């Protein structure tokens, strides 16, 4: 009985198993991979594929663990002992900033091909997805051309394995890559949604903002490239002929004006807070619909994997929310003194009077008074507050005999001469040389710092977005393009809008190239523009010329586009100790070069375009090498 039962069972199993055709035996549908046809039949799945492509965009700076990408170029000092190399090296390698990520381009091309071939998506979905992928591709080519000059323009991908020789493409001219970006932006701008509140995904505003910046870069390379004839290649893979400059400037102005006129959505400068400095800082942390300034951002969300540690890394030391994470990014005095006075003039911060005697201030804040509101919106200065906590920045006591009485940590108390009680002789927030995680220049970064509680904890993090394109830059692009085209009146209306928002209410009546360079520096510093602006104006090898700086250098020629900026300086406050003197307890300031700063930045001509590595050159003999390398 038992045997028979078993036999029936076996027979039944055999019979059911045998129903499968032999040919299907190996044809098992994958369980981890979504087949192409399935993916491109459902808009939700397509969006998730697109989200992956969005997340792989390339930026110069990144907020997550990327404080170090902001710290270079003497605009800031790295207060982390392992990162001192930024201020100890004499320059950059030829490969610095290079990128050759054709894997990403291939995947964008495949996405475009597959989405075009799809028959199951609605027309509206399909055209938007295609336009978004084309935006990402154009924006990535923009990143490549900024770094490498002309690169091979690959806009098609094959799913089959081909003869590698047919895949080897020569470098396009630098101007052809810019033309590609501009024409793609023109082609997709009316397909993308017109919505000023859509910031994470590509919109008409984002496409036009990319177009105006790209055209401006191309125009300035054409115009200012004549000053560095060495930085060109005979085939124009690097360098744009001078005759094309006006054409690009015209396109840059036209694209910017489409945004300014409101045809791409209701973008506007962020305004409304009475404190203009707080207003400027809020551009970066206010994510409500009140913020019509940011156009295209990298967004973050607390409670997910997509959060960042910018506030953790860079918060003031005294009010830190995490044991030993703070104060890494210290803006330099070079940058701070570039913020002009409210009467539109430049002046160094007044530390000494005409005869060289120190000036005594009752309040630390007084030395920074009467300056561009963007100063306090970008930099935390001594005497200010963050998260309602006052900063404690001072380097020690200045004694009447000229010596300094200090220690290198606020927890080390000392008795002042003639007293017995031990007191604190240096600020909790620094500055002291080589004392990492607190300021060594006297300043902390304010831009991108998240004022919400918990943003300085590693576990919580911050969701302040990184702004890739914003309205103030569009205005400055329009200003520069109009200026280069000789239309100063129009240029002034644009630049004065940006300036009046910052409290510089006396409008400029004359415009110069140096003014534009200066305005972009103070408005857009730490947003990934510094290097590319200096490159396209061909100022990089002049500003970073490898010569050590003196205090006299630092304090002179402020506002000049060619001002040397090779080493970050600091401004250290001291408390005057001289009982009985009227100045006792007042503040004086000294310009200091942090002792870790030993190198001086040298931008070599070969740094203008990053090196193409030997691997890439030998895989494709049609590529020509960069100049001066």
């Amino acid at each position, binding site marked *: 009985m038992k045997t028979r039962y078993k036999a029936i069972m076996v027979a039944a199993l055999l019979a059911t198993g045998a129903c499968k055709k032999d040919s299907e035996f190996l044809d098992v549908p994958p369980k981890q991979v979504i087949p192409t046809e399935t993916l491109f039949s459902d808009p939700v799945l397509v969006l998730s594929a697109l989200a992956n492509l969005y997340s792989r965009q390339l930026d110069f700076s990144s907020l997550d663990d990327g404080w170090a990408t902001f710290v270079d170029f003497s605009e800031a000092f790295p207060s982390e002992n392992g990162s001192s190399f930024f201020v100890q090296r004499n320059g950059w390698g030829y490969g610095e900033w290079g990128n050759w990520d054709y894997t990403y381009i291939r995947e964008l091309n495949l996405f475009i091909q597959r989405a075009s071939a799809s028959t199951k998506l609605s027309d509206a979905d399909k055209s938007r997805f295609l336009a978004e992928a084309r935006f990402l591709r154009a924006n990535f080519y923009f990143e490549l051309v900024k770094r490498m000059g002309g690169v091979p323009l690959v806009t098609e991908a094959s799913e089959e394995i081909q003869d590698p020789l047919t895949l080897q493409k020569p470098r396009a001219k630098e101007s052809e890559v810019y033309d590609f970006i501009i024409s793609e932006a023109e082609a997709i701008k009316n397909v993308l949604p017109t919505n000023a509140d859509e910031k994470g995904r590509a919109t008409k505003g984002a496409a036009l903002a990319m177009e105006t910046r790209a055209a401006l870069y191309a125009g300035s390379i054409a115009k200012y490239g004549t000053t560095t004839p*060495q930085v060109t290649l*005979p085939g124009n893979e690097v360098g744009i002929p001078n005759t094309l400059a006006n054409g690009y400037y015209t396109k840059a102005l036209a694209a910017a004006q489409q945004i300014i006129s409101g045809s791409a959505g209701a973008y506007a400068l962020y305004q409304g807070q009475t404190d203009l400095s707080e207003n400027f800082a809020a551009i970066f942390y206010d994510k409500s619909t009140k913020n019509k300034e940011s156009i295209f951002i990298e967004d973050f969300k607390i409670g997910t994997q997509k959060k960042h540690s910018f506030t953790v890394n860079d918060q003031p030391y005294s009010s830190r929310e995490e044991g030993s994470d703070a104060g890494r990014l210290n803006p330099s005095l070079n940058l701070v003194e570039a913020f002009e006075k409210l009467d539109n003039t430049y002046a160094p911060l007044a530390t000494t009077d005409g005869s060289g005697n120190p000036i005594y201030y009752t309040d630390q804040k007084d030395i920074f008074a009467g300056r561009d509101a963007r100063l306090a919106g970008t930099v935390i200065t001594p005497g200010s507050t963050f998260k309602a906590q006052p900063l404690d920045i001072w380097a020690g006591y200045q004694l009447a005999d000229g010596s300094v009485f200090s220690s290198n940590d606020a927890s080390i108390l000392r008795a002042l001469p003639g007293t017995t009680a031990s007191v604190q002789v240096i600020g909790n927030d620094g500055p002291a040389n080589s004392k990492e995680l607190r300021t060594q220049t006297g300043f902390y970064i304010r831009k991108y710092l998240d004022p919400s509680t918990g943003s300085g904890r590693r576990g919580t993090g911050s969701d302040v977005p990184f702004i890739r394109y914003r309205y103030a830059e569009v205005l400055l692009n329009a200003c520069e393009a109009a200026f280069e085209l000789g239309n100063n009146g129009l240029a002034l209306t644009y630049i004065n809008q940006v300036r009046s928002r910052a409290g510089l209410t006396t409008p400029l009546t004359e415009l110069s190239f140096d003014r534009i360079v200066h305005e972009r520096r103070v408005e857009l510093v730490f947003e990934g523009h510094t290097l590319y602006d200096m490159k396209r104006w061909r100022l990089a090898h002049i500003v970073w010329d490898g010569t050590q700086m003196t205090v006299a250098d630092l304090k002179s020629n402020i506002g000049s586009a060619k001002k040397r900026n090779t080493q970050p300086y600091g401004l250290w406050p001291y408390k005057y100790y001289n009982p009985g003197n009227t100045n006792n307890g007042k503040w004086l300031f000294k310009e200091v070069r942090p002792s870790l700063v030993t190198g001086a930045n*040298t931008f070599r001509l070969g740094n203008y375009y990053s090196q193409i590595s030997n*691997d890439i*050159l*030998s*895989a494709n*003999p049609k590529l020509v*090498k960069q*100049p001066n390398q």
Partner: protein
Amino acid sequence: MKYKYSFIILFAIMWAITACKKDTYDAPSVTLKGRLVYNGEPINVEFNQVPFQLYQPGFGKTGAIVGTFGQDGSYSTLLFSGNYKMIIPNGQGPFRWNENQTTSQRDTLAVNVSGDQTLDINVTPYYLINNSQITAANNIVTAKFDISKVITDANARDIERVTLFINKTQFVSGGDNVVQTSIEGSAITGLQNLSITTAIPALTPTQNYVFARVGLKIAGLEDLIFSPLVKVTF
């Protein structure tokens, strides 16, 4: 037992034979060295800033062996024997070398390396600093020198500036110095009997000598040409 013994011999022989084969390649051992010269006179440049590249075609991927010239224009590299092509990349160095007449791009120099050899590279500098005399007295360093313009045809370039550099160590250039003093090219009227003086700053730790040399910046080129290095005691 005999049976086992023969195996042992066999193993010993096999081990001995295979072990004869070396398991790595020889390191490159042939020295190619030389200097940058003009009419036999060395060309002084900045340390580590003027590169040269050696290519050896015929071995799969192409890629350069990169070296740089020393302060006194010397170079030295260890290679395998073979045929190489040498270039000094376009735009590098304060001189003209091997420029193609029509494209004005630099050509390659074929180098056959078969044994240790010295290969001086003849270049044509735009300018030379001659008869330089650097002396120190009372904490002041004085450099006296002449300049001669070597390239005077259509390729001639102007002097941007002439600078006296001083450093604590023997590496003296725009990137390595404790003090530098320049005269702008526009302020130079004659090329003979030029002089630059500069005060020696406080040195820590104190030392009673400095290294000094004069660098000449040529308009439109980033590499300077220098006078010979001098150690001056004060």
